[in-house]
């Protein structure tokens, strides 16, 4: 495929980047409902509509639950759809979120991550990602504003792929990325359209047509149900390698690539590895470089795809390492450790029994700082040398 033209570079917030990504893909129907820290996504998309930049049917719903139902139905009728929300709104649409994936509706949803209800918090955290783990959606977590825009475009390509037909959540740290304005290259519309064009060559997915005898949402009775679950899980599996392919293709066209399921940063010759996700990865890169300069053979794995869990690629990246430290911006209820840590720990048969350390940090807009990450690397390094270590650390609690 031919390379894309250089896009316009603008200084925009993460929220605006999400809106731009959606606008470039021209969704047929999109919903808006405000919630801190993503209200701007809805505002920006509505502004694009009002300015005639896109002819999306914008529905200002009366609640997030309706937001998901509106886009799912429009999607099942054959439309391209987009919505955005955060934590509380996400949890409010939980039933509809399950329906979307069960219906295999290729909905794309941008989420500015924020702490979930239970403890009132108007601040960032990844608990909302964790609360959606078992909904059957594809979950991608991004590091910076450029990646938000690019990932939204890639999300449409992934969701609507005939082999996949699954809804995709593009997650970005609320407050850290949602309100952060950085320089973002905005692809030209023709190039975004070109990137999505392969979808038109694929078979058409079944859709709701008025007057036709095909009805959506039938009962799954016994083996019918089992079949649908089986197919759903199989599609999620296929999404792992599909994301790698799509990311590679994006790189070839737009010159920016993110590694697909995971990004491996200086891991090849690393003895110890840090695993992070989201905006904290940016900070982690700086610390990894500094520690490398001191002679510590540390590498970094950025977990981009959370669901489906990138088992194979993670196992390959972590195999043969001496110790691993995982920084979670959320908690794993019932296991009393970080949730991503827990899932990586499940890879022990493939990786081998090595020290794995869980770090819980960054809840409720508490920063994951350079000193924090330095500490993590030091402790993981010590563990790799056989020194006794603490399995789970809630970093701010120890300060």
């Amino acid at each position, binding site marked *: 495929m031919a390379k894309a033209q250089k896009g316009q570079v603008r200084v925009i917030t993460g929220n605006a980047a999400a809106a731009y990504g959606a606008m470039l893909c021209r969704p*047929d*129907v999109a919903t808006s409902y405000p919630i801190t820290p993503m209200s701007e996504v809805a505002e920006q998309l509505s502004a694009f509509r009002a300015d005639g930049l896109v*002819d999306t*049917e914008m*529905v*200002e*719903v*009366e*609640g997030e*639950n*309706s*937001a*998901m*139902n*509106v*886009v*799912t*139905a*429009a*999607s*099942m*009728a*054959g*439309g391209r*759809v987009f919505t955005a929300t955060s934590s509380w709104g996400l949890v409010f649409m939980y*039933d*509809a979120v399950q*329906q979307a994936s069960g219906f295999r509706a290729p909905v794309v949803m941008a989420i500015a991550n924020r702490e979930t209800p239970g403890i009132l918090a108007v601040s960032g955290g990844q608990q909302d990602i964790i609360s959606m783990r078992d909904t059957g959606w594809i979950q991608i977590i991004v590091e910076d504003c450029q990646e938000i825009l690019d990932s939204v475009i890639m999300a449409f390509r992934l969701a609507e792929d005939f082999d996949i037909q699954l809804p995709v959540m593009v997650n970005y740290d609320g407050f850290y990325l949602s309100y952060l304005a950085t320089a973002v290259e905005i692809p030209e519309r023709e190039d975004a359209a070109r990137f999505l064009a392969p979808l038109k060559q694929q078979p058409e997915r079944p859709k*709701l*047509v*008025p*007057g*036709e*005898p*095909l*009805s*959506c*949402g*039938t*009962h*799954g*009775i016994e083996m*019918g149900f089992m079949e649908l679950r089986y197919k759903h899980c199989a599609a999620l599996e296929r999404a792992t390698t599909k994301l790698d392919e799509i990311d590679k293709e994006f790189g070839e066209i737009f010159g920016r690539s993110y590694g697909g399921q995971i990004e491996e940063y200086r891991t090849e010759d690393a003895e110890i590895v840090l695993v992070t996700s989201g905006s904290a990865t940016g900070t982690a890169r700086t610390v990894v470089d500094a520690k490398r300069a001191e002679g510590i053979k540390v590498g970094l794995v950025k977990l981009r795809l959370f669901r489906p869990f990138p088992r194979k690629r993670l196992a390959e990246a972590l195999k043969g390492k001496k110790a691993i430290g995982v920084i979670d911006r959320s908690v794993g209820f019932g296991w009393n450790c970080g949730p991503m840590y827990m899932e990586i720990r499940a890879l022990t048969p493939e990786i081998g029994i090595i020290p794995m350390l869980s770090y819980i940090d960054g809840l409720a807009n508490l920063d994951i700082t350079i000193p924090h990450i330095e500490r993590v690397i030091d402790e993981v390094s010590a563990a790799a040398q056989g020194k006794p270590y603490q399995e789970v650390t809630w970093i701010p609690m120890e300060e």
Partner: protein
Amino acid sequence: MVEGTKKRNKIFDYFREKEELYAGGVAWCPGCTLELTARFVPKVLGKDMVLVGCPGCSAPVFYGQNVGTWHRMTYYSCLMTGVPSSATGLARYYKKIGKDVTIVCFTGDGCAADIGFQPLSGAAERNENIIYICYDNEGYMNTGYQRSSTTPLGAWTSTTPVGVAGKGKPTPSKNMPLIMAMHGAVYVATATLSHLEDFAKKLLKAKEKKDEGFAYIHVFAPCLMGWRIEADSSIEVCRAAVRTNYFPLWEAENGKFRLTHEVASPKPVTELTKLMRKFSHLKEDGLAELQKVADERYALIKSLCDASK
């Protein structure tokens, strides 16, 4: 042989669709008013619509079972919390691609008045191009006759049972059709199965108005099992509801109210309550309270109609 020409009732003239769109034998109770409603609506509106529904008494027939289905309509089944919102998504998308479609939400009162009220309210306020038909059997009948917010004052339900400390539902029903009229919907009407011509006209009116915006029809649909009515009396109960002014037949077109059927000498509500056993525990005072609610509601509707003249 009867003298003179044999002529069928003019209600048949309202049928656009001659084909029976459902299988002959489907899982609705004998005498069920929902079955009559469900079979009647597509005959009047035509088959080329999209029906949106959710769990409830309609679900066992509207939902497919694996690939099999009991009817030939285009149906979108969704959650109880998502009917008018899903319908909104469909309406907006079809509009965008230039397809003229009649989208009909078809739910019970449990969905419309309770768990699905928020999206209904939102869709009505946004004036979406949707027809919403609520069949009101005054409770969650499919799950075992539990109370809903349209269950009337004093009624027995399985969650407001009668005993030493229980006297049936302690609060009157939500006046759903009036609430929907207050949303500014372009067309709101009440209808029931004893007055089929009135119902047919309202369905056609709703279809006409849906291009302008949101239309809502509230159908009084007694549940024989939940209200303890004799199998052959479903239509009689509907008729009694109209004749006692318990369920007046009116419509509001762009905010102008009109009684579509005025009852010259309304009977007391006891003429209705005696046909069912869900009120049989009510003594004089209970019945008087029910009468008062019916009278006040009728007076309100009448005054709205008079003010619209």
